[in-house]
């Protein structure tokens, strides 16, 4: 119960702060368009969208240490003790259990067609999909998608606010961190206080953790090995992927950064040509 009160309190606190700080642009379509266009932090890589870089880097290092000491070993045990098909079933089950929350957010975003897909998937997968272990809805051509309250706030016009790395939860923004708190409160299981329900909550959180981390063991290790600045690399991947999620797949590529403005690069091209001509 203490944990729940804390989450509720933190969410409430974030709400007041976030409301004054983040919703100032709310409802301004131009501000929303501008936000969608700025995937990247300031080209300088620091100020702009990541004014809390100092704090974030410390938190990122902390998370990385916890990840290496606890999450990755747990994910490896999970991989060693389960079969690929079982893991797929568990992923499906967890995704299906999130469907009510996704449905609420679909509706809050006015995405009625996607809400219909979410509801349809939930019914099909919970019944003929053996309680969600299978995904017959996918085969029937009802694609899966995810939503959360942070995305809903984005659609409503809230700007993300600074990039922030939360302890244990990882990269987020002020808006999305607040959204995650609301999602916790929207989850029906959160409000049931019987012992089995509590155990269900904890097991679900634990299994979600290893289930999400397991397929990422190699990709994240690769990114870490290949990057000069793991923090900046992760931030960019996160921001790019997050923008795609918020746009619900309707990206039009107009908002990509220009490949240098062409004048500048033509100049380089000219230099190159003259060098070659020498």
């Amino acid at each position: 119960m203490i944990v729940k009160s804390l989450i509720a309190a933190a969410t409430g606190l974030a709400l007041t702060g976030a409301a004054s700080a983040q919703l100032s642009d709310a409802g301004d379509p131009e501000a929303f368009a501008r936000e969608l266009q700025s995937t990247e932090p300031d080209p300088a890589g620091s100020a702009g969208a990541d004014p809390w870089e100092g704090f974030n880097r410390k938190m990122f290092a902390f998370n990385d240490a916890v990840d290496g000491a606890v999450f990755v070993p747990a994910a490896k045990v999970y991989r060693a003790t389960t079969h690929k098909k079982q893991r797929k079933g568990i992923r499906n089950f967890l995704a299906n259990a999130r469907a009510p929350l996704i449905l609420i957010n679909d509706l809050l975003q006015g995405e009625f067609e996607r809400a219909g897909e979410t509801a349809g998937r939930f019914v099909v997968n919970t019944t003929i999909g053996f309680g969600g272990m299978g995904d017959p809805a996918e085969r029937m051509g009802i694609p899966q998608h995810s939503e959360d309250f942070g995305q809903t706030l984005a659609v409503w016009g809230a700007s993300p606010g600074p990039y922030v790395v939360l302890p244990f939860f990882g990269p987020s923004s002020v808006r999305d961190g607040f959204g995650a708190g609301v999602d916790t409160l929207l989850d029906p299981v959160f409000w049931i206080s019987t012992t089995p329900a509590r155990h269900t909550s904890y097991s679900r959180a634990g299994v979600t953790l290893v289930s999400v981390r397991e397929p990422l063991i190699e990709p994240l290790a690769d990114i870490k090995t290949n990057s000069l600045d793991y923090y900046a690399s992760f931030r960019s991947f996160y921001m790019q992927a997050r923008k795609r999620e918020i746009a619900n797949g309707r990206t039009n590529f107009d908002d990509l950064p220009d490949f240098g403005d062409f004048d500048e690069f033509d100049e380089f091209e000219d230099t190159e040509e003259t060098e070659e001509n020498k």
Partner: protein
Amino acid sequence: MLATTKPLPLGLAPLLAVIAWMSGVTPAAADAAAEAYVQGVLNEAEPILSETDEDALYDGLATLVDNYVDMRRVGLFTLGQYARKMTDEQKAEYLPLFKTYATQIYQNALSNYSGQKLAVRNSIDRSARDIIVNSKIVDAQPGDQFGDITVHWRIYRNRSGKMVVVDAGADNVWLAIEQRSQFTSVIANNGGGAKGIDALLAQLREQVGE
């Protein structure tokens, strides 16, 4: 379901061009030449991706990247605002280092598609010289990890009409954009300017093992 792109009946294309011209708008359109160019690259990639020997796979991918990716242009892009601040000496050292580094990244990324075949689906022109071509795995099986992923290619067409690859991405996450974020961060966090660029060069040297 995604519609497969069918070539327009020949007679229709000029008509559409006239309509577009009369209406005075230039909407984002497909670029058949860029699509054909990428399909050519993907055709060349197919036997490489079917290599079972890892060394042959990586060597093949390196050659492919060397032939089609304009590493000079990408390398300058990834420096962001610092591209103009580099001295000629720094640039002479940076460009080969970047090429080695970025080739490794491409090799890792593309080796994920080992055993698969990619085919062009469609394209969107950001401008006449900056085109996004989208591709997907052909005949993806339900269990394929990357079965639903769209692989993007960003094509730059220079003034003489020659095309090159300047970026690649998966589901709207782009490699060069991520690299630019890293590089500018390294430079900025090491004092910016010439000092920051030297720090980037040192880290790149270490990363590529030189």
